[in-house]
């Protein structure tokens, strides 16, 4: 600034910060309680920490953890694909599709997932073989279901079909949350229904869909421990139970399983945080650093050009 136009600006405020006495008291109490718990856990023989450390990175446990991850990923993929289909069916003007989706939701949300998994385990006793062809007339091929070891497949199907019912509601809520004006603007620009869905509606629906889907993934990871109902015995929880059945130390092995579950859910929570951030773009008036910088530059520029005059 040149001296002729300079106006002395007031000093920046340097106030004494507020004291948060309550926070310090709370922190002290919590620290004492945590300390007591850790001391108790470390000295209590029932926790059997040496066994815990021995099995934490045991190969059988880490292999079982991989199975749990596979179950989670495959069941979620099945759940999301089927869920989106069901959501679109429920929103479609076709009343046959609409009621089909409703009945699906009614059954799969209305019965416990544990019961559904037991049912899938018994599937091969109900349907001994699958025929492909025209009913009552031509038989092209048949598969003997009892011949294959299908516990893993049925676990994925059982978890996935149950999940689809919940995903359908989440996706439907997301699509409904996007205002009519958005569809109208897209259509007025000459976009087709598919383009409008893909480019305008779904990206905005994602902001509503992503957070609960993240919860669903985390929930699914834990629900996989129920596959013992199928019965599938290669997942994390079943394997931990297996081992403790042999060495009679259930507590440290439960802690081992819990640690692995917690590790995976923590990673998922971090991923969810970044996904949510990405899909929240444009929803807030708060400026990004890049935008603030651009505005600051423009401000300096306009001040300089005024001074030149």
């Amino acid at each position: 600034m040149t001296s002729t136009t300079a106006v002395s600006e007031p000093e920046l405020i340097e106030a004494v910060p507020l004291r948060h006495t309550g926070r310090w008291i709370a922190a002290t109490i919590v620290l004492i309680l945590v300390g007591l718990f850790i001391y108790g856990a470390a000295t209590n023989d029932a926790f059997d920490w040496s066994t815990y450390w021995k099995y934490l990175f045991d190969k059988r446990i880490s292999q079982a953890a991989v199975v749990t991850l596979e179950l989670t990923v495959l069941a979620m993929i099945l759940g999301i694909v089927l869920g989106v289909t069901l959501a679109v069916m429920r929103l479609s003007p076709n009343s046959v599709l609409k009621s089909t989706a409703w009945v699906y939701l009614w059954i799969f949300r209305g019965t416990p997932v544990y019961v559904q998994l037991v049912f899938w385990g018994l599937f091969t006793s109900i349907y001994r073989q699958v025929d492909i062809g025209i009913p009552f007339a031509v038989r092209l091929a048949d598969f003997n279901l009892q011949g294959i070891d299908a516990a893993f497949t049925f676990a994925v199907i059982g978890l996935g079909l149950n999940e689809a019912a919940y995903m359908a509601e989440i996706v439907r809520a997301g699509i409904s949350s996007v205002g009519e004006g958005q569809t109208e603007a897209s259509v007025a620009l000459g976009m087709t229904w598919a383009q409008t869905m893909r480019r305008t509606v779904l990206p905005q629906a994602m902001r509503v869909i992503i957070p609960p889907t993240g919860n669903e993934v985390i929930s699914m990871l834990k629900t996989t421990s129920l596959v013992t109902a199928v019965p599938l015995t290669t997942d994390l929880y079943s394997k931990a139970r297996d081992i403790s059945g042999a060495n009679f130390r259930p507590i440290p092995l439960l802690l081992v399983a819990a640690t692995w579950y917690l590790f995976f859910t923590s990673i998922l929570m971090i991923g969810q945080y970044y996904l949510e951030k990405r899909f929240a773009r444009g929803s807030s008036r708060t400026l990004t650093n890049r935008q603030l910088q651009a505005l600051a530059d423009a401000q300096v520029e306009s001040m300089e050009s005024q001074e030149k005059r």
Partner: protein
Amino acid sequence: MSETATEKGADRPMVHAEQVHKNFGALKVLRGITLTVDRGEVLCMVGPSGSGKSTFLRCINHLETVNAGRLYVDGVLVGYSEKHGRLYELAPREAARQRRDIGMVFQHFNLFPHRTALDNIVEAPVQVKKTKKAAAVTKARDLLAQVGLSEKAHAYPAQLSGGQQQRVAIARALAMDPKLMLFDEPTSALDPEMVGEVLDVMVQLAQEGMTMMVVTHEMGFARKVSHRVIFMDAGKIVEDATKDDFFGTPRSERAQQFLAKILQH
């Protein structure tokens, strides 16, 4: 006039409506609209709310389907195809093709909140017209400059004022090189101090010879740039007059009452 569909040449009207009716269930919203809008004409549509102005505008780019009568844009029947004396509903893809070169500006802007100002403008040319991204971006920057918002290219709609959002929305519509621009109460949702900046852009557009149909309550704008004013009431055109006649000596009593009310303030 029924030969309009087969008329050829640049002198055919941009919009031609014949006895257009539109019902929503039992409610008759349009009750026989007959109107011709020439190329380069700026038409203001005024009238009390519920008179069917917006609905008629939405019929023109087939956001609503007419129930009776015929509506032509640039000589092409809107929403239907006519073969052997029968009307066939258009497939969605065909309807989308018809809308491409009709720009529309909404009362509530309807910008895409998840895209920056620039991306809002680039979207339709790239997705619908399959324009190369780089060319679309260059053009979008020109359009942003035209509406005076070059420095806001990377801002999201939520970070723009109402007036700025509406200017971006106009630029977005212009990016498709429309032959006709429809404005549905473009300034009604704006603070008074922002109305001017949007109207300035529209005045400029009118002076460049764009064919415009504007539903508005801005009598100042109607007076300044429109060629013609139609006054609608209860689904009919009550008065169709040149701007000077309309503001000077409106013939219908209903229009006189309306003007008296609106110009009092």
